[in-house]
């Protein structure tokens, strides 16, 4: 089943065309990563799906409804974690979660949802006494309290320290295990790589690539890198394969890594050389992403 269908979506602000014919679909139960540089039309697209903006053209359905007219029925089934939304400051964590529980027909228990985002020890604390990261986690809790089928997470871990980010990733993984559909935007490629089943890259208002993280990494012009530390006294011109040396580290960029590696190691063994810190690196999602969005 399809949770979200976007077909030929367009949106302009005055003379600026922010979204220029974007199409994609999100399957039920998957984590869908929407990536793109700032100003690419990513937030506009998300906000149209969330029901905050009206589209100029194209078809959009979210859980089978038009988000522009879905109203309360749709919002009961969708959880939002907005990029810059604040939470009311004067209530305690539990009070706020209880308030939000009252908005939904089948909310999850407050204690469970507070525990899920790791705020169990802060349950009786006022919101304005929490750190920025803790407020953000509370924001995530409020997005999940209604037990939504579909969750939008707009840059959910921006500003998190590494351990908080790991914890948040586990929350998202758990949500996926529960069968939730998740639309995630992020600027962190490791996050997209770790969490997303499929990724859609938007640049300049258009979809420039779509697929699993693995297919995106496979369909790239970026080449595999073979790296090692240049042994003392070895000159680059002595190596029979084209390479570049930067700060003592040699890099061979190749589209045939098996052959290049064999050539390199055969030569090194014949010379009686050990190549320190030898490694083979596939292009990362970040390399691919930078290539895809380079024309910005």
């Amino acid at each position, binding site marked *: 089943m399809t949770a979200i269908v976007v077909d030929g979506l367009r949106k302009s602000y005055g003379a600026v065309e922010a979204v220029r014919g974007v199409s994609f679909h999100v399957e039920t139960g998957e984590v869908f990563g929407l990536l793109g540089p700032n100003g690419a039309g990513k937030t506009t697209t998300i906000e149209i799906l969330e029901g905050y903006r009206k589209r100029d053209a194209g078809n959009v359905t979210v859980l089978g409804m038009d988000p522009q007219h879905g109203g309360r029925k749709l919002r009961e089934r969708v959880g*939002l974690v*907005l990029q810059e939304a*604040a939470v009311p400051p004067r209530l305690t964590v539990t009070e706020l979660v209880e308030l939000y529980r009252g908005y939904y027909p089948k909310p999850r228990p407050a204690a469970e949802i507070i525990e899920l985002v790791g705020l169990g020890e802060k349950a009786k604390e006022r919101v304005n006494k929490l750190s920025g990261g803790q407020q953000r986690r509370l924001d995530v809790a409020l997005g999940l309290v209604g037990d939504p089928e579909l969750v939008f997470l707009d840059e959910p871990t921006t500003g998190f320290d590494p351990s908080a980010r790991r914890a948040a990733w586990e929350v998202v993984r758990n949500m996926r295990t529960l069968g939730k559909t998740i639309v995630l935007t992020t600027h962190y490629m490791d996050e997209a790589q770790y969490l997303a089943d499929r990724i859609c890259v938007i640049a300049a208002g258009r979809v420039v690539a779509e697929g699993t993280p693995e297919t995106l990494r496979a369909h790239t012009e970026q080449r595999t890198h073979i790296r090692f530390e240049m042994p003392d006294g070895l000159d680059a011109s002595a190596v029979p394969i084209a390479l570049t040396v930067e700060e003592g580290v040699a890099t061979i960029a190749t589209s045939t890594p098996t052959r290049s590696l064999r050539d390199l190691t055969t030569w090194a063994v014949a010379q009686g050389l050990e190549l320190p810190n030898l490694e083979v690196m596939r292009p990362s999602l970040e390399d691919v992403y930078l290539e895809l969005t380079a024309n910005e």
Partner: protein
Amino acid sequence: MNSGTLVAGQVVFEQKSFWRNPGSAFFAFLFPIIFLVVFATLFKGSTAPVGNTTVPYDDYYIPALVAFGVMGACFTNIAMSLSIRRDSGVLKRFRGTPLPPWALIAGVVGSSIIVSIILVLLTTIFGIAVYSVHAPQHIDAVVATVAVGALAFCALGMAMTIVIPNADAAPAIVNAVFLPIVFISGTFFPVPSSSVLAQIAEVFPVRHFINAMFTAFDPAHQSSTGFNGTDLLVMAAWGAGAVVIASLRFRWEPNKV
């Protein structure tokens, strides 16, 4: 969700937010009380001309301050708190939940009315106990005037947020509009109806509110019913206009820079 439960939940939320915030609790609640003490002490023993007669200053001042308290709890409080919430994204976040917008507004208005009622009672009792003012002659008229005034000034507070660009500007803009009108309307000392200031003030709802409240308190027994139809109508008209403007132009999201 049951509508009554939703609104009750919002009122409780608003009450907690109000009383736990030193800023709003001070400006909306303590301000009128402080004014009461300061002005009553300042003008002790003097009299105020009202219409064709003269009443002790305190008898003029208490009804005026009752109206002032309601305006602060409704207009100032709503204009400021909603601007701040809009700017921080709190309103946008509420808008993304199934909570209907009318329920959120009902919570804000209901909470402001609760604060208003407390202020009306406190000011009146304080006036009677400490400054020996006459008890209100027409309780029904006081209730009606507070109701019309509170609703009208809640609507005006909502409409006011439309011209407030961001949270930082909220206190300056609200006070720049509110305080001059409060002064020329005779809140702190009577402004004779024949004066230019009063003529200007006649246009705005504040003077009508004070006048209606004075008529309802009626310390000199000038009115048979305590109701001043014209004043109530002018206030209601301002409120209705504000409702129309707010429903057309109210913003839930921060201004894009």
